[in-house]
């Protein structure tokens, strides 16, 4: 019976290696955070926040840095679930729920399907553009400017409280009635666009002839 279980050697090596590295990096961070928590430097919610933030940021970095597209997509899942955790910390269960359902259940599956249907299945390794250093510079400048500006501001007195589901529904469907209708139109347009593009269009006679000629030349 046990020989039917997959052996570690049969695991994707990257997953094992990645998991080991993640565990090695995460343990000290976790230890530091726990130490801070128990020495009362940070509060309980803040401890959870930092944990979620680490998941979000490292997942995001993985999503933009990984060479293997499937691994990048899995990192995106981690980020989006971490973001859902952040929403929970912000006391908005409903949007956290929507985030998990729409992103975890829909968008990422869609992305993975598209990756599989394009070349990712045979050749999952992608090369990035040549403007990587430039992109890094721009993003770093942008990020630090954002952080500086946001920390510079005095954001007034927080008055956080939990929004009941009922109020939320009333707010959306009564106070924001027009946006609900407009977003329905928007989804309709996106649906139309998706099926128009994904459906195989009739090939132009000229293109078909060229394709046939190319095929003959190759054989």
């Amino acid at each position, binding site marked *: 019976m046990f020989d039917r279980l997959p052996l570690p050697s049969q695991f994707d090596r990257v997953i094992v290696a990645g998991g080991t590295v993640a565990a090695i990096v995460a343990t000290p961070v976790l230890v530091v955070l726990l130490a801070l928590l128990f020495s009362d430097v940070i*509060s309980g919610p803040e401890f959870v*926040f930092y944990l979620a*933030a680490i998941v*979000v*940021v490292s997942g*995001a*970095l993985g*999503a*933009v840095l990984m060479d293997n*597209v499937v691994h990048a997509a899995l990192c*995106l899942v981690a*980020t989006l679930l971490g*973001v859902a955790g952040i*929403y929970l*910390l*912000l*006391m*908005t269960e*409903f*949007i956290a729920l*929507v985030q998990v359902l*729409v*992103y975890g259940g829909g*968008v990422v599956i869609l*992305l993975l*399907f*598209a*990756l599989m249907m*394009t*070349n990712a299945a045979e050749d999952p390794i992608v090369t*990035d*553009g040549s*403007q*990587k250093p430039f*992109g890094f510079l*721009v*993003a*770093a400048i942008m*990020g630090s400017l*954002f*952080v500086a500006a*946001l*920390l510079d501001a005095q*954001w*007034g007195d*927080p*008055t*956080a409280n939990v929004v009941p589901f009922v*109020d*939320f529904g009333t707010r*959306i469907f009564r106070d*924001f009635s027009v*946006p609900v209708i407009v*977003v329905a139109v*928007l989804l309709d347009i*996106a649906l139309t*666009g*998706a099926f128009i*593009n994904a459906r195989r*269009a009739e090939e132009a006679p000229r293109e078909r002839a060229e394709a046939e000629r190319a095929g003959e030349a190759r054989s």
Partner: protein
Amino acid sequence: MIPIENFLVLSAILFAIGFYGVLARRNAILILMAVELMLAGVSINFIAFATYLDADAFSGLVFALFVIAVAAAEVGLALGVVLRLFRERRTANVDEADSLKW
């Protein structure tokens, strides 16, 4: 209570990472993923402002919900286009689609 700055800084970092992804990636689907990261940053911003500074009207929560809806629709539409382009050109890389120049 967690200071609001924590959330804002997290969202700024997420947005910047997403922007880096847009600039550095060549594969259209990976660029889309980077855009999703940027939009996640935006949603965090909206929700943080809504719960901390606009708790009575919470328009930001509604905004974030619509952002999620629009982002999902955009992914659907864009992936349709990517599949079409892949069928036509056998590539999902943006810079190999280069018949339009200047």
